[in-house]
């Protein structure tokens, strides 16, 4: 077997050194009643070449080769990734390393994490950012738990119904075996959170909104933060599309106490929804309540500067059941990649790319209106928006799948009152020609 280097001679010598004559003797501590009675039922081993053929066949059963157009965002976004990024991020010194517990031989990972933290904090407008959570959804759940730790005497979190329904489902799952409660905030007719509902909710530990929200609408984050603070709750702002903050005012600058979201847009492939990148930032004052790994500066005995994992007394391996989270392996390599992606764009490029996304989406919005769609909400949007489709669109959309065009995401399954409503997403990967073709097909 190509991954096992032992020759018969090696095995014989090693058995001799240990004082056994048969490999089965290695497992004498496994009693008969704990043993397998039959071999594992698995396919016969494949050569590298057979494996490649099998995987190519599976990949071929996906529509997602060149030419497929998926006009869905909702937590996973199609963006261009510069070719050098997977090359350089794929350097095996990064990829095959473990969590940098031994800093002297992990300075590469550590400096890259420190740079990512700096960029992420800047993008989100927070004083600090951690080295990553798993994804945007679990990051939001951890943010809510963090707020409940800080606001110890309160046990309720208010979450906007315009937060991604799949993120809200994670929140309610995390709360289910606890005494914590979730309440939902309604929406206004313009597609944003009705933040006035917060007034008078005196038992809230936190208020959670997402901006741009699930419907694509840009929330009034400042008003949400003020309303939260008005009832002495923390303001948590989530996001699914990190690129929006290349253009929009950062949640931190608008008063959010905790900012969390999905960073997949920053140079990670979509990969059917994972791995993603949970971005997480907060105020310096609350850093000791923050979940997750964090890298800080340190000096050696000669005063040479370097980087280490720090504030680990918050973490599971030290604080055990009183830890700020159980998280251990996170999305380290995804964070490194996102740092590299942000570096490749720079401040100028992030702004330009974000503007391009907004312009493309506005164009499609206008063209769909001409084709008989109705823009449901009047609030400004970034690269996603919600429309109500004309009669017969569901069948047309189904037909278009055969041409590898996915025309928006139907959202009725999460919002039964929003029959025939679709959220569309457009990014820089679609040209005007693509969009015109989409509208043409939709109108057929």
């Amino acid at each position, binding site marked *: 077997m190509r*991954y096992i280097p032992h020759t018969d001679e090696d095995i014989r010598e090693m058995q001799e050194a240990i004082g056994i004559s048969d490999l089965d003797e290695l497992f004498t*501590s496994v009693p008969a009643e704990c043993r397998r009675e039959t071999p*594992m039922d*698995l396919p016969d081993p*494949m050569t590298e070449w057979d494996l490649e053929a099998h995987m190519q066949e599976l990949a071929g059963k996906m529509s997602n080769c060149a030419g497929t157009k998926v006009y869905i965002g909702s937590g996973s976004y199609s963006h261009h990734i510069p070719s050098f990024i997977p090359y350089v991020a794929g350097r095996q*010194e990064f990829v095959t390393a473990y969590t940098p517990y031994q800093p002297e031989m992990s300075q590469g990972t550590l400096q890259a994490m420190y740079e990512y933290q700096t960029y992420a904090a800047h993008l989100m407008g927070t004083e600090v950012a951690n080295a990553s959570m798993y994804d945007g959804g679990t990051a939001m759940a951890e943010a809510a738990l963090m707020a409940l730790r800080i606001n110890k005497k309160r046990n309720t979190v208010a979450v906007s119904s315009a937060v991604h329904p799949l993120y809200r489902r994670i929140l309610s799952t995390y709360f289910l075996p606890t005494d914590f409660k979730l309440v939902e905030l309604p929406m206004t007719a313009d597609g944003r959170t009705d933040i006035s509902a917060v007034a008078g909710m005196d038992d809230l530990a936190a208020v959670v909104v997402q901006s741009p929200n699930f419907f694509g609408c840009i929330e009034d984050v400042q008003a949400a933060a003020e309303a939260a603070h008005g009832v002495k709750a923390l303001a948590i702002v989530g996001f699914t599309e990190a690129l929006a903050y290349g253009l929009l005012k950062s949640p931190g600058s608008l008063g959010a106490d905790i900012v969390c979201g999905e960073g997949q847009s920053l140079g990670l492939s979509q990969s059917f929804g994972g791995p993603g990148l949970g971005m997480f930032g907060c105020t310096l004052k609350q850093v000791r309540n923050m979940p997750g790994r964090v890298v800080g500066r*340190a000096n050696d005995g000669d005063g040479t500067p370097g980087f280490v994992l720090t504030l680990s007394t918050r973490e599971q391996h030290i604080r055990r059941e009183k830890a700020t989270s159980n998280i251990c*392996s996170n999305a*380290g*390599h995804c964070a490194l990649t996102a740092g590299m992606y942000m570096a490749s764009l720079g401040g100028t490029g992030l702004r330009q790319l974000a503007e391009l996304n907004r312009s493309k989406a506005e164009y499609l919005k206008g063209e769909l209106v001409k084709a008989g769609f109705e823009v449901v909400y009047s609030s400004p949007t970034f690269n996603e928006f919600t429309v109500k489709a004309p009669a017969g669109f569901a069948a047309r959309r189904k037909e278009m799948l055969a041409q590898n065009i996915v025309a928006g995401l139907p959202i009725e399954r999460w919002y039964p009152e929003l029959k025939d409503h679709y959220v569309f997403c457009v990014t820089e990967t679609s040209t005007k020609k693509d969009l015109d073709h989409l509208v043409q097909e939709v109108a057929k």
Partner: protein
Amino acid sequence: MIGRIVKEAAIDHREGTSGLIFNEPLLWERGSKGRTAFSMPKCDVPEAAVDADLVRDDLDLPDLSELEVVRHYTRLSQWNFGVDSGMYPLGSCTMKYNPKINDKLATLPGFARAHPLQDDELSQGVLEMVWNLEQFLSAITGLGATSLQPAAGAHGEYAGMQVFAAYHRSQGRQRTKILIPDTAHGTNPASAALCGYTSVGIKIGADGILDPAEVAELMDEDTAGIMITNPNTLGLFESNLKEIADIVHAKGGLLYGDGANMNAILGVADLGRIGVDVLHFNLHKTFSTPHGGGGPGSGPICVAGHLEQFLPVPRVVKDGEMFRVVDECGTALGSLHPFFGQIGVMLRAYCYILSLGADGLRRTSEMAVLNANYIKEKLKDVYELAFDQPCMHEAVFSDGKQKDHGVTTLDIAKRLMDLGYHPPTIYFPLIVHGAIMIEPTESESKQQIDAFIEAMRAIAIEAEQDPELLKASPQRFKVGRLDEVAAARKPVLQG
């Protein structure tokens, strides 16, 4: 050999500005406004500005050229040590070789560009992979059903505790406590606490494994079950596990198996037969997916058949020739990830299992256990063994023999770096004072293992003859030993 090492250590290798140790500054100390590394598409639609009061004007990140970014990260990578650089015997982390073909196949465009919410008929390939991999993991454990959703090992533990909670809810009564032996993985108590369980510690017996009598004494009807790492963090198989399972089940509890150490018992143990109710795998340990310097991992859970109804959604089902996504919660515990979990990681593990097959996986465990026992035999006269008995995939030593010379486990670990090895896991498990936990994995050849043994033995001699050398280690890196205490006292977390 030893003399040469002592002599060379006098050279200061830390200047960091020449040879192959470049002195690379932080990203923002490079660059100039107007550079870019991104091929920006032109705007071919009318520009549509957003309201000015929504727009930020503070995004001050440096502009860099492509070569600047490439060189920056290439240099950083040269300050890093990975499995591809050398032996990485980090106990309980299973740092085995990560096959390159798996990286290539996991990133085929059909997978890499797939959207998790696209219609099922466009996603048959990845849904088939999910379905197959679930079958494989169930077959490997002997358990009834698998969910691939948890995003890492600790997330798998948490998913398992959620299954416990869902099960006890279905029985009409929630329980408040969970038993956790002191040989369990460090994350276990925190994972249980997230589900509202209070951990009750169990001391292990004199032979390093759990005594069923201890479990019987603590297990009651207010206890949800027990979380056992098997093989445990001393590298020992919990030989009384079946009896423990019976005790826990008799009181209406469940048995959780932390499978982080499954690399020791593939094809050997039958977890279903033992009576394990829930078990998580770390695909990034047992099934060779890269650790990435701290993730992404993947922590699938396998459950006994009667618990399948509680597994998180969405789930993939086979419907004739078609694979479909089922997303209704029903009795499920809910959802722990927005989508299906770490698909990119699963694809790699899937490739690994297909490459080895049943015999190859069993061979993997045999060689991992052989390597560990060989190291144990060859080092036990110079390093104190925590428990002198045959081990599984890892052996736990301590600095017991070295501390008389003022040398600690940390000193030994740092010196090992200078000799070209990543140190073992140190100071864990907590029950062994000054623990040195060595897990060689099956990937390392006898020659490599012999060289590692020689290095460890050389350090044992150095500890007696030149303890100051060990205290001054490491010396062959860009930085020397970093002051972690000062870093935590006054944290500087961003530039």
